[in-house]
């Protein structure tokens, strides 16, 4: 039962990463990147590295998200290309 959960987490991880690359709305891309970060934290929990997972969840899904939102406020909401 364990490896099925890991494969599900990996699939969500890859889909979130590809979605973040494709999105034109930058705020939605930031939220998708936070999903990516949280899924990698969950994968680290499943591999037994609780402390690394804690750091990844706090920094990747918390602080980096706020700094990305701050960067979007200084530019435009949608990509120009």
């Amino acid at each position, binding site marked *: 039962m364990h490896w099925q959960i890991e494969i599900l987490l990996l699939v969500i991880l890859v889909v979130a990463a590809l979605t973040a690359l494709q999105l034109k709305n930058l705020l939605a891309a930031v939220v998708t990147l936070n999903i990516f970060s949280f899924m990698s934290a969950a994968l680290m929990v499943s591999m037994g590295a609780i402390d690394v997972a804690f750091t990844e969840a706090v920094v990747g899904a918390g602080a980096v998200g*706020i700094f990305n939102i701050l960067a979007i406020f200084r530019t435009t909401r949608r990509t120009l290309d």
Partner: protein
Amino acid sequence: MREASTSPIIQVAIRGLMPVIQLVGLYVFFHGHYSPGGGFQGGVLLAVSVMLGRLALGLEMSQVVFRSGIAVGLSAVGVMIYAATGLAALLGGGEFLNYGFLPIPGLDPPALRNLGILLIEAGVTVGVMMALIAIYDEIVESRTESSVLATFE
């Protein structure tokens, strides 16, 4: 950002979330010995609570929570706590950061190690929290877009 958010949902949610995040941050800091967590994660959590307040409540209201402009100095204080603990162990006769030699009378080495870890983690917590808030304040307040662009030209 500079002005408060106009949505009441965001206002109420952030005002409710901020003390909870701060409480979890303090829990993570104080239980760093026994469970996953420690100074870095607790400091990031405390900084995130302050930064969420800055985002949602606006620059003026968030000054009540944490005044901007003192963060850089306090991050230096965190580094000083770390270095002072290490140097105190050096003065007590041991190596740098060897907590068993801290010059505090009346405590045996295991209690001294416990206290030393706590002091180190307090320094790391204050340093990380204040450094992140200082980066945020620097991005928001310091320069306008034109002067940022001017520095690249």
